[in-house]
């Protein structure tokens, strides 16, 4: 066995003592964390089950109901359109018959005129001719009345046809509302998928096994669709079209004539991506460690030199935050140093007035009380604990 110098042994013992002090100081903190977790776990369980019910039962049901609403309205609209088409065809048919009847009446009028002329030429001015003319006039009058009736009927049919057209126009509401419903359905699906992901992280993760956590991406609706007869939107579209001037895509400027093998400079690439060259670096200078630190962190230079391996001292300095007052490399952390790290949350703690210390508490009786836990979730005074709020939410939903 290799003999160690006494200084080395003392140094190691000092390290062991430091670790022991660290353990003593850290233990109450970990116990407090454990106490907090004990309070939080039941709440999370309830949140988990609430989300599970929402994501597996309520939301899919809501989405499928909305989908069935769309299907039902589309079916009903199709039925209405069938009837409109049928009525439209009948109106058209009736109108054609009316037009034909009017043609017959005109033909009858012509025949009566011919008949009157024939009688005049054969009978001359007789009483019989006068009686026949009176009858023909009466017949003409009846034809006129009939023609007027047919014209009125024709106008009525035009109105019916116009109404049919208006019904067809109004049926566009089905397409517009279906887009609105699809928009809401998509929103529900998006929330459900996010909740499923959240529940997967919170709970057993079993939901992810049978729920598609990604929201539908192939959306084919306009969330802003509205049934507006006023023509305002069309007027706006007309205005935009009138003012529209097509944008000619600008071609990228050609590089100056020269060596085609010269590659783009960093400035050019920066300009391409950012619109301006990066002021921090020049293309002909290599990036320094400071530049890299500034890029990834808060600009503080790492205590580690790039050429050094990570010694235990360096790690201590790194975890010590690199702030002044921390031990220099090569020295072990003292109890004071450890206190400085945990100090604010350990040394300033006061005994909890809520209850007496229990076996799980530290010497000062510190553990997370219900009030403290509640405060974490609910900063408002007089409110119920999250457990009851979750219950209320669940009850309301049911």
């Amino acid at each position, binding site marked *: 066995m290799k003999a160690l110098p006494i200084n080395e042994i003392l140094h190691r013992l000092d390290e062991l003592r430091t670790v022991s002090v660290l353990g003593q100081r850290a233990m109450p903190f970990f116990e407090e964390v454990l106490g907090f977790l004990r309070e939080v776990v039941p709440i999370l369980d309830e949140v988990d089950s609430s989300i599970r019910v929402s994501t597996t039962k309520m939301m899919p049901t809501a989405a499928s109901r909305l989908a069935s609403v769309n299907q039902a309205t*589309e079916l009903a*609209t*199709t039925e209405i*359109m069938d009837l409109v*088409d049928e009525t439209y065809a009948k109106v058209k048919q009736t109108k054609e018959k009316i037009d034909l009847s009017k043609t017959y009446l005109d033909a009858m009028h012509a025949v009566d005129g011919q008949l009157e002329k024939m009688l005049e030429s054969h009978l001359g001015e007789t009483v019989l001719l006068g009686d026949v003319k009176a009858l023909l006039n009466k017949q003409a009058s009846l034809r006129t009345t009939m023609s007027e009736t047919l014209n009125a009927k024709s106008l009525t049919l035009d109105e019916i046809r116009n109404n049919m*057209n208006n019904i*067809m*126009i*109004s*049926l*566009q*509401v*089905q*397409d*517009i509302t*279906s*887009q609105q419903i699809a928009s809401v359905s998509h929103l529900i699906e998006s929330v459900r998928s996010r909740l499923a992901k959240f529940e997967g992280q919170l709970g057993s993760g079993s939901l992810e096994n049978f729920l598609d956590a990604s929201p539908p991406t*192939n*959306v*084919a*609706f*306009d969330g*802003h*669709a*509205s*049934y*507006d*007869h006023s023509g305002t*939107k*069309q007027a*706006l*579209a007309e205005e*935009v*079209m009138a003012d*529209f001037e*097509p*944008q000619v895509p600008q071609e990228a400027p050609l590089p100056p004539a020269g060596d085609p093998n010269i590659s783009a400079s960093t400035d050019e690439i920066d300009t391409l991506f950012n619109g301006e060259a990066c002021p921090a670096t020049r293309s002909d200078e290599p990036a320094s460690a400071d530049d890299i630190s500034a890029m990834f962190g808060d600009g503080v230079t790492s205590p580690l030199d790039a050429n050094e391996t990570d010694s235990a001292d360096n790690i201590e300095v790194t975890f010590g935050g690199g702030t002044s007052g921390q031990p220099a490399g090569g020295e072990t952390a003292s109890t004071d140093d450890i206190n400085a790290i945990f100090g604010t949350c350990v040394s300033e703690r006061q005994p909890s007035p809520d209850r007496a210390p229990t076996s799980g508490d530290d010497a000062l009786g510190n553990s997370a009380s219900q009030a403290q836990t509640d405060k974490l979730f609910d900063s408002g005074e007089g409110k119920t604990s999250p457990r009851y709020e979750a219950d209320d939410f669940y009850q309301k939903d049911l």
Partner: protein
Amino acid sequence: MKFLVVDDSLTMRRIVCNALREIGYSDYVEAADGVQAIEKMDADPVDFVITDWNMPNMNGLELTQSIRANPVIDQVPILMVTTRGMKEDVMEAMQARVNNYIVKPFTPEILDDKIQMILKTA
């Protein structure tokens, strides 16, 4: 003149076709999305396209861009009939080179006006 009516809503396709009949055009074919429309145009050329914007698989804007990018059919007039009535929407459609734009709900008279307007300038 042969029309191609493109809309994923059966209701809207019927309404547009009825309106076309009403204004005197009875030769039309239908497609439920942009992909189907391209297939129909490949199989049998059409003289005029009336398309919706929001459709699955290939929307009306993509269909317009696809038609305009194809030298064989790039001159076919395109009329966009959609619920999208925001200024940006109209500009985007015009930028994609639709010939004209109708915001739903529309009347057969508006449809007729737009078709005549396009045919005059085409």
